[in-house]
Structures are given as C-alpha cells and as structure tokens.
C-alpha cells in the first residue's frame, strides 16, 4: 500500500502548478547567471585572482563550464531550500487546510505509510530539483563556456583541479547537496504535520535555515558547541568535494549528521501524525 500511496503522491505533486515554480525559478536564475557570466564573467573571477596577479599570471580557460557550474551552485544553494520547501512544506498541511486529508485518512492505509509516502515523494521531487540544477549548470555551462580545469577558492586558498578530476567531484558534491536539501524537505514535511495552513511550514523552514546559518557564521564561543551539529553547517558539505586532499572524514561526518537529522525529523513527524486528531 506504501507504493500505491507514493504513486498517488507523485500524481499530486506533478499536477500541482506550484511544483513547477521551483523548476522554473531554477531555469530563470541559472539563465540569468549564465548570461551575466557570459557578458562579464572574467571580471567576476578576476576578483578572486586579483591579489595573486601582481606576481602571477593565470593561463588557460579560467571561465569554463566547470567553474560556471560551481559559481551557480554556490550562489543558489541558499535559495534552492526555499524552492524545495515551497512544495514539500505543503504536502501535509495543504491537505489539512483543504480538508482532503479527511478522505485520505479514512482509507485502509496506516498513517505512517501515508506520511512515509509523502516523505518519499518529497525526496523524489527534491532529487528532480537537484538534477535539473545540475543539468542546467553543468551541462549548459559546459556547452556555453567549454570545459577546463576548475579554480576553486576555499578558506585556505585557491585550488585548481584538473578537468578529468572534476566529474566525479561534481557527482559526489551534488549527492551531498541532495542530502542537504533532503534534510530541508524532511524538516518542512515534519513542520507540516503540526499545522493546518500551507504557508506556516514553508516560512518556518526558511526561518530555521536562516537562524541556524547566522548561528553558524557568528564567531561566538557560546555557539561553538552546537555549531557542528546544526544541519545548516553541513549544507555546504558539497564544497568539500572540491578540496585537495579530499576530506573524507569531514564529508562522512556531514553525511551522518544530515542523515541523523532526517531520522529524528521523520520520527517526530510520524509520532505527531499518528497521534493528531483530524478535526478540519
């Protein structure tokens, strides 16, 4: 019955106009960034190389598709969670608000299965978003700007990765980015179980992300204890794939923390959803 319910959720998501808002927004945002980079990309990246250019000269195709994709991912990673939450935050509360949940929960399927099917469908939707982002940024970036080595600016300096050493990093990076977005999706669905209006979970999810991000960036000793366990700290874990040497331990830790968040959030959501009285 879980599969049947999940299939139903896919039908509902694909039929909702709002589901295409996110994909459309990504298309437009990426398009705008690609256009800007095509017009004046070199001056953007010269900002990165300025302090080195007194003594050094950088030869080769700096502004290539790989760098463009990296810049796009870097710019959009704070905005994509909103586009994900826009759909996933509505999966439970939207049906509660419309009353459709009454019919749904009088069917011979357990509430846990109903909720899990929503998590699965939300996860697949998030996967579609990240795949679309990848296609738009990496594929179209490479078509417009060509291929080449990737120059990445990390906190401890500039890393230049060979062209044939990049694709697997992008795959790994996107996989971890997906995990981060999946955590956002899980959070929004969990919040969706506590309310009966559509906007609440979406706004609350974004507020939590913003709050945790601020806590993560404030260089205050008080927050040092909790910072490593905030999921927002690990939302940028995808960048670790572009470091040399690859910080495997750090990436593994990020993966486990993100997965841990999802387990906790799903558990909370299941408990709430199963004990909730449907009075709407």
């Amino acid at each position, binding site marked *: 019955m879980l599969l049947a319910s999940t299939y139903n959720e896919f039908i509902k998501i694909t039929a909702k106009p709002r589901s295409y808002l996110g994909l459309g927004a990504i298309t437009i945002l990426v398009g705008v960034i690609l256009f800007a980079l095509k017009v004046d990309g070199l001056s953007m990246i010269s900002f990165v190389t300025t302090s080195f250019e007194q003594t050094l000269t950088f030869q080769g195709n700096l502004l290539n598709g790989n760098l463009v994709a990296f810049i796009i991912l870097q710019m959009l990673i704070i905005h994509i969670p909103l586009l994900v939450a826009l759909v996933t935050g509505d999966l439970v509360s939207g049906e509660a608000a419309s009353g459709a949940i009454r019919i749904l929960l009088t069917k011979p399927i357990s509430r846990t299965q109903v909720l899990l099917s929503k998590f699965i469908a939300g996860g697949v939707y998030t996967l579609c978003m990240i795949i679309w982002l990848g296609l738009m940024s990496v594929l179209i970036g490479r078509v417009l700007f060509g291929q080449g080595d990737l120059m990445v600016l990390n906190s401890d300096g*500039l890393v*230049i990765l060979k062209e044939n050493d990049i694709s697997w990093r992008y795959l790994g990076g996107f996989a971890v980015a997906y995990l981060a977005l999946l955590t956002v999706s899980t959070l929004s669905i969990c919040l969706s179980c506590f309310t009966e209006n559509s906007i609440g979970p979406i706004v609350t999810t974004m507020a939590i992300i913003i709050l945790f991000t601020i806590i993560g960036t404030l260089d205050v000793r008080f927050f040092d204890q909790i910072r490593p366990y905030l999921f927002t700290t690990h939302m940028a874990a995808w960048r670790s794939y572009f470091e040399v040497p690859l910080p495997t331990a750090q990436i593994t830790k990020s993966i486990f923390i993100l997965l841990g968040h999802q387990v906790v959030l799903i558990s909370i959501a299941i408990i709430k959803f199963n004990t909730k009285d449907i009075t709407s």
Partner: protein
Amino acid sequence: MIPPSIRVLFLLFFLPFCTFAQDASTLVAKLSAKMNQVKDYSVQVRIQSQIPLINIFPVNGTVYYKQVDKFRIIAKGIAILPKQGFTDLAQLLSKKERYSAISTKTEQVNDVPLQVVNLLPTDETGDLILVKLWIDSTKDLIIKSQTTTRSSGTITANYQYGKQQAIGLPDILVYTLDVKKFKIPKGLATDINRTNIPTKAQPKTGKITLTFTNYQINKGIDDKIFKN
C-alpha cells in the same frame, strides 16, 4: 697639474669599471648572439607550482617562441606562470639599444665563478626597472636571473641546462617569487560556514618550476599559433 700618484689612483679606480663595462657588454652580446641563433622553437613544458595559498597539480603544455618577441604557452587546463621574468628577458636582450649592461662582481655558485651583470633598461618609463644576471662566462650561459619590475616586485630564476646548452635554452627553470602580498579574498567563492581557521605561518616565497623536454628548434612556426 695632477700628480702622477693621483692619476695612477684614478686609473686604478676607474680602470676595472671600464674593463668590466667592456666585459659586461661583450658578455651580454655573446649571450644575445647565442640566443639569436634560435629563430623559433617549440618545446614541451611541465609546470609545477609550489605557491602558498595555491594548490595546483602539475600542468603540461607547449611553449612556442618566434623571434623577436612572439611567445605563447598552450597548456591543457589552467597554468600559473610568473608574470615577469619569463619573456621580458628575451625581449630585453633581443635589441642592444634596449639596455645598458654593467658588470658588478663575481660570485661563486656551486663552485662555479659567475659574473654578475646588471642590465638597466634604457626605457625609464617602462615597467622593467632592473635585470640582474649571473653568467657563466666560460660557457656563455645565464645561470641565474633576477628581474625587478614596478608592478610585480622581484622574481628570481635559476637555470639548469642540458642538451640545448650550446644555444642557451635551459632544461629547467625554477622561479622564486615573493608571496607576502598574497591573501584570500572573502566573498564570492568562500565557504561561509568555516570559522576559526587556524592560521598557519605562511612562507614568504613561492616556487614555479618549468621543465622543458623535446625542443624543436628552427623548424618554423606558423604565426597563427601566437594569435589568441
């Protein structure tokens, strides 16, 4: 009337300079003549950079040169090269009227006596301020050079020769750069979640090593290669 003792002293004082000046110009002229034997060349190059704050793998490429000042490196991927000290020396030496050479001293480097010659560019408004050459006068080879420019400061290059010694083309060039001014810009591409970065003591110099193999000399190079 100048006393003879004073004349002798005067001669003793200026004679070495006159002698050196003549030697410096001759020495540099010999170098130029040697280098001018090469009308064009292409060579495979491997560029290895050890520069603080930059992590880059070795890059392979091809260097193309054609007299007088056509020069291009085509590398697969991104290569980092010193801004100065690579082509400007060859360009300076290509025309005698571009510089004046002054011999300063002799230095022992690896048990080899080297003549230290200063090249002062005649163009006082240009970026190049001074080029210092350590020359093995027995072989007419530049062993070390130090280029000072207004924009880039001082870059030192060490030359190692192999098969192409006779025409003054090195097998290995090692550049040493001043990296004190290097810093990481915050913003576009930084990791905002990283705080408390442990500050390591940053070395003050960086190195770029160019290893040349498979010189193709005076085989003719199409001018199209030098167009971007």
